[in-house]
């Protein structure tokens, strides 16, 4: 079971890095108080699995989840939601 989890984790990491590799080299990303990062720096953070790397992975996974939920096709997903 542990091996399977590790394998999935590695697959996710590879996927996130593959997505980051297509990022334009002229761009940087601001992640709040964590700072500003270039493509190469982001890839290093994901490889190290540190806080910034985990955040990038979370964003990418949430995006893929949104795709699965049909975010681009279902009006409701974009609908107005409030949290109290």
């Amino acid at each position: 079971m542990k091996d399977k989890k590790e394998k999935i984790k590695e697959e996710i990491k590879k996927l996130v890095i593959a997505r980051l590799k297509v990022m334009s080299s002229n761009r940087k990303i601001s992640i709040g108080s964590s700072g500003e990062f270039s493509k190469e720096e982001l890839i290093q953070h994901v490889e190290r699995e540190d806080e910034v790397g985990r955040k990038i992975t979370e964003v990418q996974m949430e995006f893929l989840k949104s795709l699965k939920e049909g975010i681009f096709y279902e009006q409701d997903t974009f609908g107005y939601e409030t949290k109290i």
Partner: protein
Amino acid sequence: MNKILLVTRPKYDDTTYYLFHWTKKVIKLADKKGIQILDLKEKRANRKEFESIMLKKQPLLIFLNGHGNVDRVTGQNGEILIKTNDNEVLLKSKIVYALSCKSGKELGHKSIEKGAVAYIGYDDDFIFYFEDNKVSKPLDDKTAKLFIEPSNYVIESLLKGHSVGVSCQRSRQLYKKNIQKLLSIDSSSELIPFLIWDMKHQVCLGDKEGALSKNK
């Protein structure tokens, strides 16, 4: 409560530099609408001045720009301006928009408990892309614009007299518009996941009917 907009806009790193400059458009709009502006910029974005001006002028609209965390929003050089279980009572009877990371998760809720009309913010990191060669001219950065413009639209809409609920809704609609624009050009755009992230993590707490126009 006075029809006054208080803006805090520190400037000490790339992120705050961008937010600082993009806030100019909001200030211009407030000026056009005849709304008094209290601009705590750079060094003036410190706790002492913030607390003093909040008590003295009682502004209705508060626009906080700067780094933050679940329990705080900061000013120049990361100095805490407002913090949970400390001075969030200052936000009582105010409509707050915090362009800051994570404060919608805890500070926003605590502010509502302490009597704030509404608190709009982000319950996780606010993330944006920018062009490395545009850092000296952030307002010309079309990539950053995709992120900051929908976000700042919350406060612009409030200045136009719309309610808190409508302002949040319109901000999200602008995010959606930008996502759809990118999708039509390149569906694999690296920007899309981060725009969706910001849109999904924007929170709108408190009275959705609250508005500037309700106050005289």
